[in-house]
């Protein structure tokens, strides 16, 4: 029977209430803790060979008959008015089949508010020709004064929403009773996602249906957004994404480019590819926005936090959202008196977009560095300070956690933390070594709705069908493992068909670390439904009771020791098939579902040249049950490496006069290379969350990037005594902080 449930849904820290329908019986007991036959054991990627051999077809590789290519004219100014736009000369160029301006497509702008805002677009028989035609579009620009300074924007009231205010307890009272108060301002930079496959889509009308091939993290979100905008019945938009080349939060919606493609397809009657260049990618597809964080912490001499106060300015840009930079201060520690004030500055800079744990990466950097400054003042071990302030329930709303094993993470961190004397002792000459740590808190519980089907054929093989996407995290493989475990099948007898809204049920967004915790329970429920039917069939065929039968190792097994190969049972069906259906049930009522962890970094700092090397990073995270230890380790390592880039080398720079983006290319914007990677130790607790779904799994895409910057910067302080409070830690920032530390020492040593 279909059950209608009112439940709370969380994506990237934003909660909404919604109705969901749960079909069938999702009340399946979790598997026992520890590895099963397939789940919890390392599995190589189902699609690994396809991808490695270059056979996987990404959106970038989709070829369609008659395909034409769009190029987008973007504002060269941070703020401007288009007084005149003439497409006629562009349209005259041979090979050009269509051109559009702001009157033809709602995403094209007459008053662009950032460098890179789309203004017009051309379609031609080749991308090169379309680019050529762009040069023939005649535009009369009127450059307007740009607002670039986030603090100035807040002063002027140029903000995205009302300032967010939060307070619990008595903060002023807390500071009054504190034995020690520390205060500092932290800054984080703007960081660009730079997925290897740029944002792009190919659109085509097939009869009354709009087909959209798109590199996306959310097939259904794209379908629904386009349908809403075009006022089409949703199923007349078909969204396809079989393989995609990275998103990291930036590919959650159709994007301007898809609407441009749709408008040009309507205009030309041809399929249209609108693919961004790398330079456009770094202008107009979002970013992790810069932040300014003024933080204050008060503690008693035993380390008990008695007050936390944070004022945040999120430099959101022209559009986007003011993210939860305040989250860690409000949620990470057991502090009764907490106050935050958060502004989202509206600026003439490119819009932000979710980027792997948005807000929490930035906020954790500030809070966890401040905590180490506090530990130094208190002469308390930084790990001990964190233990003493462990929160055993959610102080923001009084709810219990569905599961929390952060103290166990700390216990495991001891071994890495205990190395720090030995690490420091390895300092030699100008190279000083040190160790730092930081805690992690983030969401990752997923939620309904999400659906899956499992089809078992007469050959005893199963196919999981759901219109989800695998954005490179290995979700395809994890879903196959879950179905295989439930059906007692070896992994090589399970396929996964995904990536097409016309060929499978609704599936979750792959953002907010939600794919496994959202989709996994639905897949398990669907496999269980199919398995139940197989057992029913076997019971009737072999005249035994259902309760003595189970599915194991490709067989239907009788408790008395007898067994039948699965294909013998399903073979009875000939062309008939067993179809199982499954839905994701709700999250536990009245509980907070969160992920936790700690990272310990060892660094080497050359105090003469300011060179910082991250030599080792141990990551210990509590993300519930681990489905695929092999893929999970890769996710954690990848998150840490993005964190290392965020900490040391990545920064979007804009011209301070004009607000134009300067780091558009990958020589100027410095992603980590293989040579920048530290030794990494990954430990996942693998303790299922007893309260969360039939799996007990949380997501782990985002947790590993959350504490990395703070752990590294705390290690730098340990190694050198220098206070780095601004990211990235370039040579100039490191040399500045070292000089400041030397000056402080000199003053301290000088007679008063």
């Amino acid at each position, binding site marked *: 029977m279909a059950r209608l449930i009112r439940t709370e849904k969380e994506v990237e820290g934003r909660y909404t209430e919604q109705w969901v329908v749960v079909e069938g019986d999702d009340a399946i007991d979790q598997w026992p803790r520890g590895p099963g036959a397939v789940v919890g054991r390392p599995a190589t990627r189902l699609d690994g060979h396809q991808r490695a051999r270059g056979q996987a077809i990404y959106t970038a590789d989709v070829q369609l008959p008659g395909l034409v290519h769009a190029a987008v004219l973007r504002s060269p100014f941070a703020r401007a008015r288009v007084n005149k736009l003439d497409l006629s000369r562009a349209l005259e160029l041979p090979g050009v089949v269509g051109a559009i301006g702001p009157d033809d497509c709602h995403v094209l702008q007459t008053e662009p508010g950032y460098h890179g805002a789309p203004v017009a677009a051309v379609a031609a028989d080749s991308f090169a020709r379309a680019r050529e035609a762009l040069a023939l579009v005649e535009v009369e620009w009127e450059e307007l004064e740009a607002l670039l300074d986030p603090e100035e924007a807040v002063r002027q009231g140029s903000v995205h929403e009302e300032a967010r205010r939060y307070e619990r307890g008595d903060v002023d009272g807390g500071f009054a009773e504190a034995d020690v108060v520390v205060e500092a301002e932290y800054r984080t930079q703007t960081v660009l996602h730079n997925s290897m496959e740029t944002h792009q889509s190919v659109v085509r009308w097939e009869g009354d249906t709009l087909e959209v091939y798109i590199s996306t993290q959310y097939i259904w979100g794209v379908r629904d957004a386009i349908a809403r905008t075009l006022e089409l019945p949703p199923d007349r938009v078909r969204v396809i994404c079989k393989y995609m080349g990275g998103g990291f939060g930036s590919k959650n919606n159709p994007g301007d480019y898809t609407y441009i493609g749709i408008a040009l397809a309507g205009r030309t009657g041809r399929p249209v590819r609108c693919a961004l260049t790398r330079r456009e990618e770094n202008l107009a597809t979002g970013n992790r926005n810069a932040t300014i964080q003024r933080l204050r912490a008060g503690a008693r001499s035993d380390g008990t936090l008695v007050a936390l106060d944070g004022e945040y300015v999120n430099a959101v840009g022209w559009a986007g959202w003011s993210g939860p930079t305040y989250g860690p201060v409000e949620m990470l520690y057991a502090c009764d008196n907490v106050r935050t004030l958060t502004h989202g500055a509206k600026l003439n800079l490119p819009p932000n977009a979710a980027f792997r744990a948005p807000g929490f990466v930035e906020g954790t950097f500030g809070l966890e560095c401040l905590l180490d400054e506090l530990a130094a003042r208190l002469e308390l071990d930084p790990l001990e300070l964190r233990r003493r302030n462990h929160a055993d329930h959610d102080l923001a709303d009084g709810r219990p956690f569905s599961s929390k094993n952060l103290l166990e993470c700390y216990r495991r961190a001891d071994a890495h933390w205990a190395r720090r004397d030995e690490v420091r002792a390895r300092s030699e000459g*100008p190279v000083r070594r040190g160790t730092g740590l930081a805690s992690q808190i983030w969401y990752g519980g997923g939620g309904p709705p999400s659906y899956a089907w499992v089809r078992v054929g007469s050959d005893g093989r199963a196919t999981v069908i759901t219109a989800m996407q695998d954005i490179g995290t290995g979700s395809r493989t994890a879903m196959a493992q879950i179905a295989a475990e439930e059906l007692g099948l070896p992994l090589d007898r399970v396929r996964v068909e995904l990536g097409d809204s016309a060929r499978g049920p609704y599936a979750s967004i792959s953002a907010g670390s939600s794919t496994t915790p959202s989709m996994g329970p639905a897949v398990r429920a669907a496999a269980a439904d199919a398995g139940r039917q197989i057992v029913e069939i076997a019971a009737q065929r072999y005249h035994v009771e259902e309760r003595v039968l189970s599915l194991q190792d490709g067989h239907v097994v009788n408790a008395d020791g007898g067994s039948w190969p699965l294909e013998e049972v399903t073979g009875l069906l000939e062309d008939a098939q067993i179809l199982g259906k499954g839905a994701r049930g709700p999250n536990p009522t009245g509980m907070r579902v969160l992920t936790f962890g700690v990272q310990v970094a060892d660094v080497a700092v050359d105090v003469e040249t300011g060179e910082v090397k991250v030599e080792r990073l141990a990551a210990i995270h509590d993300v519930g049950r681990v489905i695929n230890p092999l893929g999970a380790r890769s996710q954690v390592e990848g998150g840490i490496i993005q964190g290392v880039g965020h900490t*040391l080398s990545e920064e979007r720079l804009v011209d301070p006069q004009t607000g134009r983006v300067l780091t558009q290319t990958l*020589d100027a914007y410095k992603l980590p290379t293989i040579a920048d990677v530290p030794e990494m130790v990954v430990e996942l607790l693998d303790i299922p969350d007893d309260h969360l779904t039939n799996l007990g799994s949380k997501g782990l895409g985002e947790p590993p990037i959350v504490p990395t910057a703070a752990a590294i910067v705390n290690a730098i302080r340990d190694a050198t005594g220098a206070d780095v409070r601004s990211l990235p830690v*370039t040579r100039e920032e490191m*040399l500045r902080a070292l000089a400041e530390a030397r000056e402080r020492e000199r003053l301290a040593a000088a007679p008063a």
Partner: protein
Amino acid sequence: MQLLRPESLASATASLGNGSKALAGGTELVPLLRSRLVEAETLVDVRAVVPRGVDGTRIGAGTTLAELEVDPQIPQALREACALAASPQLRSMGTIGGNLLQATRCWYWRLKYPCYLHGGSLCHARQGAHREHAIFGNERCASAHPSDPAAALLALGAAVRTDRRELPVADLYRLPTDDDRDVVALEPGELILELEVPQPEASTYLKAMDRERFSFALVGVAAARSGDETRLALSGVAPIPWLLGSPDELDRATPLPGTAYKVDLARPLLRRALAAVT
């Protein structure tokens, strides 16, 4: 656009000049053509006529950086400079001759701001974002020269032989002036054929960059010693590779607010480079 593939030096030099461009590894020219920073009607593929390979102290200008980074015959500073330059693929493609002629990575210049180097009146970097920019010779244009091998060759006292003359590497470069914004002193159509690289007693190249590999120098330091004489040269600090008479000359640097750190960064590198060659 057309592409010529001359078989003889005479026909190659006859085809050059008049706005045509010599193409060898293409790592610089092709991206510049594609981003329209360089326009050319004619490309002249000079690979058949420019010598390639190392013979004692002579290096063919068509030798790739990848070949040089592992060649035991050439001085260590040049080997190290090649090994730390660019990426493996770019080193496999790019020639030493072309490397010497590469343009600055100044983002204003690359993004076609009408800057001094492009013939305008203003250096946008001086008022703008300039952490990668110059601390010497930066009064009119604050761009930084990106070549690692050029600094090594400068310290080594190398010379280039072109199709019409021989000149020291030091004379290959000139600061841009109001009359001529070019940083290279070659005549139109002049083609570098060979390098003459004296063998020092000791040499080294040290490079500070934003990541471990595949990044242009914030500061690169080359040192080469022959007998009592040690020559020092820097990359990434001026619109051209910069010869430094002594480490003390750093005191005469004219950094911008955002490049002052490069002076502090150059000091220990110079000290280390000197220690390595003595």
